């Protein structure tokens, strides 16, 4: 049985045409699974279904054999915007998932400090989010999602607002953190290169349907030089073709 499984899932808001049709998705444990598609194709809705934030109108979703709403403690979520609490210091933002359950203890604090250090923010723990750059804020959001060692990490275009260089740095950080924790990842993006660089498998969505799934057969650990390798560009080209991007004249 796979770790996260969606079978024949439909979703629609009452009185509106469905936004997702017949989604089948199987994510094995430890896999980094990327979902690519244009804006409005239902990627974010799919992620919210996997998180148990919304319920499917039809079909079945299970996370380790349980409905996701029951497994909420095992899920970390990173939103499009960092969504930090501006009146709390960086360290308290990272510890928020802990402090909503119980009083944070010394080992929680040490762990939060450790995560921040891994993300190059060791010096910024006592600062406020407004004193950080956009990339640093995204890193804090990532640390917050990882503080409880989630079995499943859901990311919704977390790096879309960042500049290209910062984005590459954060992609590298994400891979490093997830490899350490053996976390299963579902990563939603509209950036084909990002999906291929991060993913073990890429699912292509169009207008609320899964149109193609593609394994990414690149060696790990992924290195920046691979971004220019023929196999990498070949995969990107195949995805672009599948999205009907290749044939259009500029």
């Amino acid at each position, binding site marked *: 049985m796979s770790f996260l499984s969606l079978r024949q899932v439909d979703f629609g808001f009452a009185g509106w045409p469905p936004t997702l049709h017949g989604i089948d998705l199987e994510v094995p444990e430890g896999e980094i699974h990327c979902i690519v598609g244009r804006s409005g194709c239902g990627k974010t809705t799919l992620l*919210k279904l996997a*998180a148990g*934030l919304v319920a499917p109108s039809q079909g079945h979703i299970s996370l380790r054999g349980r409905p996701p709403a029951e497994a*909420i*403690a095992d*899920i970390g*979520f990173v*939103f*499009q*915007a960092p*969504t930090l*609490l*501006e*009146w*709390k*210091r960086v360290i308290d933002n990272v510890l*928020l*998932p802990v402090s*909503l*359950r119980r009083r944070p203890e010394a080992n929680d604090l040490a762990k939060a400090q450790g995560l921040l250090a891994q993300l190059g923010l060791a010096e910024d723990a*006592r*600062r*406020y989010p407004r*004193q950080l750059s956009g990339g640093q804020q995204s890193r804090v959001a990532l640390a917050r999602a990882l503080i409880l060692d989630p079995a499943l990490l859901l990311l919704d275009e977390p790096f879309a607002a960042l500049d290209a260089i910062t984005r590459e740095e954060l992609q590298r950080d994400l891979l490093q953190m997830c490899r350490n924790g053996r976390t299963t990842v579902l990563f939603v993006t509209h950036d084909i290169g990002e999906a291929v660089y991060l993913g073990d498998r890429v699912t292509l969505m169009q207008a609320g349907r899964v149109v193609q799934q593609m394994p990414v057969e690149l060696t790990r650990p992924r290195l920046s030089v691979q971004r220019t390798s023929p196999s990498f560009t070949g995969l990107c080209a195949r995805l672009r073709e599948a999205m009907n991007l290749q044939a259009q004249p500029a």
Partner: protein
Amino acid sequence: MTRAPWGLWAASALLLAALLLAWEWAARGLGLSALVLPAPSRVLQALWKGLASGYFWPHLRATALVLLLGIAAGCSIGFAVGVALAESSLLRGLLLPYVVVSQVVPKLALMPLFILWFGFGMTSTVVITALICFFPLMEATITGLRQVPPERLELFRMLGATRAQALWRLKLPTGLPGILAGLRVAVMLALVGAVVGEFMGSSRGLGALVIAAQGSMDTPLMFAVLVLIAALGMLAYQLTLRLERWLLRSYTSPG
């Protein structure tokens, strides 16, 4: 808030001095009766006499107490009702129309009724002051709590936060700047409520003193009391600003 530079402060003080001098000159030179417009020097005399003899102090204390009690009662009730209405769409639908209608009635027009119900004295003035404070704080609380960005609410849901946690640890901190802006408005309106309440419903307090001065045709005394009211208002406003800055320190402090 930015502080005005010293040069501007000095210019502002000079302007005040010039206005007072012009007033003094007009009161003396034009031969206006002190009954109509007393010269600033006479107002100052009355002010000093009242303060030194201890005549003003019980009245000042009474108004300050009415202000404090009225603000405390009105703001805490306004805050509690605001939280209840923001959190429950059922209550909002049920009660908000009545609350709004109740605010359309000029509250000071209710003073005679309150004197009938609560008697002539402090209770009536506290009630009217509280009633005036209630609405801006309730309004600000409802708006503040309901302006939380949806993704933050989703974050708290994802983290398994209870409703109370979402209220205390997300909605209130997010709405706090707006709620405190409402408090500032409430405090200013409260002074109007307290003084006008005392016009009608009390024999003590700065409002009652204004009426007494009018009755004895002692215009310099009336002006002196107005100066005291202005000073009390400034003090209340500054204290509110201090409180606001203190509560919002983690929102603005540089580190």
